[in-house]
């Protein structure tokens, strides 16, 4: 198990470095820059001075190594958008609303989705199954900004039960979290349904039934455990996806989270901020997949490649 984790860690490090290289050079390959003449018509002399102050006059590979050296020391630089601040400080503040929104969205949506998927699988081809499938299909096919708009129209404009947007007070959280939760809910409902149907039809379930085990024990102790692998695969990356996936929800409901920084850092060519956001997400995805692999190994020892063969 330890060597399995070690090998995984090495591959995480390699992925991280490769991704950082790709992001860094692609970011600089896009025409324009933070002091592009179209956006900021300052004189040539002043532009040169500004670029030199930020080290943007150096060759790209020097800029890359400087930046990554900083990253190794947890220094993500100073955002051009907010020179009095640090990227770390700025993101640590903006991450809170995103985490609340995304985290609660997944924590509420995923279990509900699992329940819905289970209900659908256990009542296959009945109205419960059709209803669950319809909800899941809607959740997956309708873009989140449309569901957001519908929620605002119904609950804020027509019924006037909840505020349409904004953050701060818990009642303002309800609609954006609901809008966001629909994504994991729909995803989980679909995954759970198909995974359970797959397991239920396997021979060992028939054997268990023949042994006379109660249906409840079969479902919760055996079927669900055996259906868990695809669910684990989706869960952590989806959790990490909260950092990026909620851009639309944040915009529609005016949540002061990371989404706005994502958009504005790209618009204003705020390299340190752009880079930090991408690196953090890469890192979190890497860790998420690593954790997924460990959980797989715990659920199903056959997956411990090299460890248990």
């Amino acid at each position, binding site marked *: 198990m330890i060597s399995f984790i070690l090998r995984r860690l090495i591959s995480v490090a390699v992925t991280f470095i490769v991704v950082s290289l790709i992001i860094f050079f692609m970011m600089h390959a896009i*025409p324009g820059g933070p002091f592009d*003449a*179209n*956006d*900021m*018509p*300052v*004189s040539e*002399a*002043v*532009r040169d*001075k*500004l670029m030199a102050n930020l080290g943007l006059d150096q060759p790209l590979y020097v800029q890359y190594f400087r930046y990554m050296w900083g990253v190794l020391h947890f220094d993500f630089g100073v955002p*051009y*958008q*907010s*020179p*009095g*601040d640090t990227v770390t400080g*700025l993101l640590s*503040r*903006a991450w809170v609303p995103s985490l609340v929104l995304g985290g609660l969205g997944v924590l509420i949506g995923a279990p509900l989705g699992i329940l819905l998927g289970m209900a659908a699988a256990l009542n296959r081809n009945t109205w419960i199954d059709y209803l669950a499938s319809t909800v899941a299909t809607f959740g997956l096919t309708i873009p989140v*900004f449309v569901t957001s*708009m519908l929620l*605002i*129209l119904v609950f*804020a*404009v027509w*019924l*006037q*039960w*909840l*505020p*349409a*947007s*904004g953050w701060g007070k818990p009642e303002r959280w309800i609609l954006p979290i609901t809008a966001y939760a629909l994504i994991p809910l729909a995803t989980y409902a679909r995954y759970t349904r198909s995974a359970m149907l797959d397991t239920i039809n396997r021979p060992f379930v028939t054997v268990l039934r023949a042994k006379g085990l109660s249906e409840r024990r079969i479902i919760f102790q055996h079927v669900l455990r055996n259906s868990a692998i695809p669910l684990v695969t989706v869960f952590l990356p989806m959790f990490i996806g909260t950092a990026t996936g909620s851009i639309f929800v944040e*915009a*529609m409901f*005016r949540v*002061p*989270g*990371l989404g*706005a*920084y994502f*958009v*504005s850092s790209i*618009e*204003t060519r705020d390299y340190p901020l752009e880079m930090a956001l991408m690196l953090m997400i890469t890192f979190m995805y890497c860790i998420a997949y690593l954790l997924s692999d460990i959980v797989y190994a715990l659920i199903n020892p056959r997956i411990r490649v090299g460890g248990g063969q």
Partner: protein
Amino acid sequence: MKTLLKIAGALAVATAMTAPMTMPSLAQTTIVAPGQSTSGTYMDYMKTVYARATFAELLQVPIATFDKEFELTPMAAESWSQSEDGLTWTFKLRPGLVWSDGEPLTAEDYVFALQRAATGGYDFAWYWDFAGGIKGWKEVTEGTADVSTLGLVAVDDLTIEVTTVAPKPYLPSVTSLWYPVPKHVVDKLGDDWALNVDTIVSSGPFDLESWEKSNNSVVLTKSDTYTGPWQAQIDRLEVDPSLGAPEVGLPAFLAGDADYSFLNTGQVPVATQRYPDGIRKNAVFATSYISYDLDSAPFNDENVRKAFYYAVDRAELTSTVLKDIAIPAGSILPPGYPGYNPDIAAEAVFDPEKAKQFMADAGFADGAGFPEIEIWYREEGGYNGAIIPAMAQYLQAEFKDVLGITMNIRVLPGAEWMDGLRNKTNNIFIAPYEYDYLDPSNFYGIFFNGGRHGYHIPEYDALVSQADSESDWDTRYKLYAEAEQIMIDQALIVPLVHPITIAVISDELGGDASTPNALGFTSLDRLGHYFFTHLTKQ
């Protein structure tokens, strides 16, 4: 199970019934308004215009500004006068103005603001060069002269003297963007003074309560130290740029979370039907027009240009394709803009017969033999982004129909479009222009002596040059009108449309700012000083 359901249902109904009643009522009057830019670096207009924080300018008092009817009104200045030779202006400040930290606001704070702008990489420096014409500006910004040589002097605490390189009769209107910078604070903290709410001081009708940098939203409060004209009539102003997109702004408005919202073309009919008294048109003082390379065929022929001029049905264009997010343009100056000449605008009529005749006169009867052309427009967001692509397609169809020609369309990034214009690599363009300062010279300047279009029309240049330095306003306007007549007579441009923005406002809003001016415009995102200080809420 049934009992559980009953309890849940009862709870839901109870919550629904009590929710609206438990909303706290605000003792203060607060207006929630949409902002524009979702990112801002400094809360200091004189540090950066393009990356300024939301409404940084509302915190400071300009020398002068424009009122509801777009008339120039003194603000920090009490009066101004021009020297005999027209080169020196003397501005007298109002006594008793103070910074929010209690320090007196002096002439030095204004002079310091521009001196710092000239030396500190200010992105609006060109404005004080070509619009302001301040003596020594170019040399100082290029680093070849010392800042002390600028034509700016604080004679005493309340007197500012400005010297220009040529007579600038409209200089007071240029000062509408001249805000003070607190020298005493900058001396202590440098540029950092404008980064944090705690260190920002104000001189205008509003103070800063909070600034959320992730979306550039701010909360401003009525200043209790400001003694100048136009005091705020509301207690708080919450400006949220994430409400700036109509797709977010209108739902928030409908739910009562915003006091007004801008509308996109799809929303205009719905909002107009539901709030017939709440619709407001907002002038942006911009014009979209066709310009040409005058030196090469086929547009070196005046007849061809005139044919294009008469082939545009502007009324149909604005009412159908653009759904009234623009008004027809007959001249380069928009209605309400100083020097606007309705007589010249009225000449721009849709006359397909005349257009055909001019084409025939040019040797292209029914378009026969006319080369295939490609009109270039610039990739843009905002109101131009909503207007220009649709307009280009409309023109393409109309020119085919009326003139019998094939016009292709090409969209280019800003830099490449500008390059095409300057180096004449193409021969026909859709060009948008938005004012920088409220004076006719701003619009006429873009065609003056090369300008941005490479036009060299000696008689036009002579008139504009004379008008630019003429101090008698009636004579100036007459000269500009003559210059504009040349533009129209020679069909140097085809004025197309003046973009406007449309918004819906709550019936709770009142005050002078909430009603349209004589031209039917309400300044919702222009002239913020006037608007937000003349707005009330029930």
